[in-house]
């Protein structure tokens, strides 16, 4: 039995503008000690799906269906109290921006103590010792001294280390890392990823890493699920995703990663267009408005995630024939048929400010902000 089994999970939010299908029928499993990378653009539903595992997307306007089994226990039907006992104890989570994720008015040590004492019946002193032990474990120098510091007195990387210390203080079986390195300097990013990997093997924790950056998960993930518009469009072992990806969207993600060995003047190829509105998804394959290989039939038929012949554990939701996809990918790799963004989608590309704005809203279930402030 897998540690986390998600089956046909949908998270829809009712808003004044219509139903936002943030997550629309996704399934995946994570085994003990395993790492799953969930990759996708802003608004692909990757964060919402993980927040739902934590029970943090429950709200009056959320409609959640499907199944989330953790350690054999169904979480979707669990009461708030039952979920609360699991949160921060069996399943822990770290977030994108460690500065805003730590309470500015409380000392770092005290925040970890609180996490420990919420789930364990230990004295303050014991919890404090545990906090210091954890701070040392995540590589914070002089942990006894730094436990008395406030979050704003830490650097970005240190804050994320403190977040990780807090998340792992109760030996969780599953750690969900939501864009754990996005807000950090590039040099610090690698350190944080290494740290997560090291602690994972030490504690035998399963990890779900959510990111928009395939580079982040390339080394640490065992499997990768690529999400687009609330669905998983491709799911495979990490090596397979990099060696033989089958979905045009995955190709796009791969060609937008800069490589050290390519010529300096080689241009990166962006994926044309922008993510679709989750209220009003395009008919047929939801990627069709941005897909360079679209055929008229793709605008009518909705592809399902199906196993790829001859590739173990590899699933893809694409209407192109397997042979066509293999041929296209081979050509793309050899550079004989360079990915040319379709002219008509490029015109539709949003200005850079719009992309930044999208990026900023990432990580929060957007619909809850929609109904805010009725006065």
């Amino acid at each position, binding site marked *: 039995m897998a540690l986390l089994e998600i089956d046909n999970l949908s998270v829809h939010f009712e808003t004044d503008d219509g139903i936002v299908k943030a997550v629309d029928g996704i399934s995946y499993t994570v085994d003990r000690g395993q790492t799953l990378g969930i990759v996708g653009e802003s608004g692909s539903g990757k964060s919402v799906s993980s927040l739902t595992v*934590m029970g*943090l997307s429950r709200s009056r306007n959320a409609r959640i269906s499907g199944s989330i089994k953790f350690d054999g226990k169904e979480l979707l039907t669990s009461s*708030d109290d039952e979920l*609360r*006992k*699991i*949160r*921060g*104890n069996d399943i*822990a*989570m770290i*977030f994108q*921006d460690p500065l*805003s*994720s*730590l*309470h*500015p*008015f*409380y000392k770092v040590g005290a925040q970890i103590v*609180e*996490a420990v004492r*919420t*789930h364990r019946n230990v004295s303050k002193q014991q919890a404090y010792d545990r906090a210091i032990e954890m701070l040392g474990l995540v590589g914070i120098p002089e942990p006894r001294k730094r436990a008395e510091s*406030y979050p*704003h007195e830490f650097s970005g990387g240190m804050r994320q280390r403190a*977040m990780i210390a*807090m998340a792992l203080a109760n030996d969780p079986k599953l750690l969900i890392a939501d864009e754990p390195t996005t807000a950090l300097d590039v040099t610090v990013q690698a350190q944080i990823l290494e740290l997560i990997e090291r602690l994972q093997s030490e504690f035998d924790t399963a990890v779900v890493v959510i990111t928009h950056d395939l580079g982040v998960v390339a080394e640490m993930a065992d499997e990768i699920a690529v999400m687009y518009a609330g669905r998983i469009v491709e799911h495979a072992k990490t090596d397979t995703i990099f060696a033989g990806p089958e979905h045009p969207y995955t190709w796009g993600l791969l060609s937008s990663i800069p490589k050290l060995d390519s010529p300096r003047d080689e241009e990166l190829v962006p994926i044309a267009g922008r993510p679709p509105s989750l209220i009003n998804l395009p008919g047929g394959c939801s990627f069709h408005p941005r897909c360079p290989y679209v055929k008229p039939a793709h605008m009518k038929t909705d592809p399902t995630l199906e196993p790829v012949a001859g590739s173990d554990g590899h699933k893809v939701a694409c209407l192109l024939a397997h042979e066509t996809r293999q041929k296209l990918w081979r050509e793309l790799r050899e550079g004989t048929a360079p990915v040319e963004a379709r002219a008509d989608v490029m015109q539709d590309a949003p200005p850079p400010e719009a992309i930044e704005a999208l990026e900023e809203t990432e990580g*929060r279930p957007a619909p*809850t*902000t929609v*109904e*805010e*402030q*009725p*006065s």
Partner: protein
Amino acid sequence: MVTYIIRRLLWAILLLFVVSFITFVMFILLPSADPAVLRAGRQPTPELIAAIRENLGLDKPWYVQYLIYMRDLVLHFDFGYSYQNNVAVKETIFDRLPATVSLAVGGAVVWLLIGIPIGIISAIKRGTILDRAAMGFALLAISAPVYWVGLVSIYLFSKDLGKLAPIFQGSGQYTPFTEDPIAWASALILPWLVLATAFAAIYARFLRANLLDVMGEDYIRTARAKGLGERRVVFKHGLRSAITPIVTIFGLDLGILIGGAILTETVFNIPGIGRLAFDAIQKSDLPIVQGTVLIAAFAVIMANLIVDILYAFLDPRVRY
């Protein structure tokens, strides 16, 4: 921190000089009744008025008057004497201060006790009938002028005039605390409630908006992700942040009220600083006006300073 406080205090002194000068100039420039004529009583002789003018120093040029006033103030901490009854301004103000402080502090306690719980409940139960009702009442309370609320409350609830439930002491019953604490409190209940109405409404709305804002912060999500109970999330994590700006406006509001709650004091005939200022303006009693303006300015400046110092303790990110 200490140098910061010293610097602020020096600024405060400069500011008080400016305030006193402006008050003086406004008094000279703007049309007002002649204090000497008012002092002289009915059908005075010109000689009497001239004698009074000379006696009060009103015959000297205005800048000389100001300089004399400042000299006495700086050298002897002497605020001068009332034009109308020759009582020392300092004495009068210290005489009136307890009533104003009683009204302001008591009212503040009442509005915090009412406003803060309503703000919290409204934020937690956002969008419910409870929230809508509370915010509707709050809007009414903010919109209603204090003198109107005061008069209506006397009409409905005062022992002498109350038409609905004559349960509280009405107007003009103020007794100093030192004389009779029970009479003091019972006379102030209605003024406290009236003064607190608008403030409680403002605080409830402000806290509600703050708390809703804070509850959307990332660190609240972290608190929930830790598995904390909702009560602890709201009170220890949410309220802790949301209450800090409330401390700021509370300090300022209290400072302003120590300078005199003119309307409430007038409606309930409470002998405080506000009433004193009001009467002094009507009687062109410059020294009293100066005294009340300076004490009000001093209260606001000090409140401001205390709030800023307090902030360094409330928010660890703030350093001076």
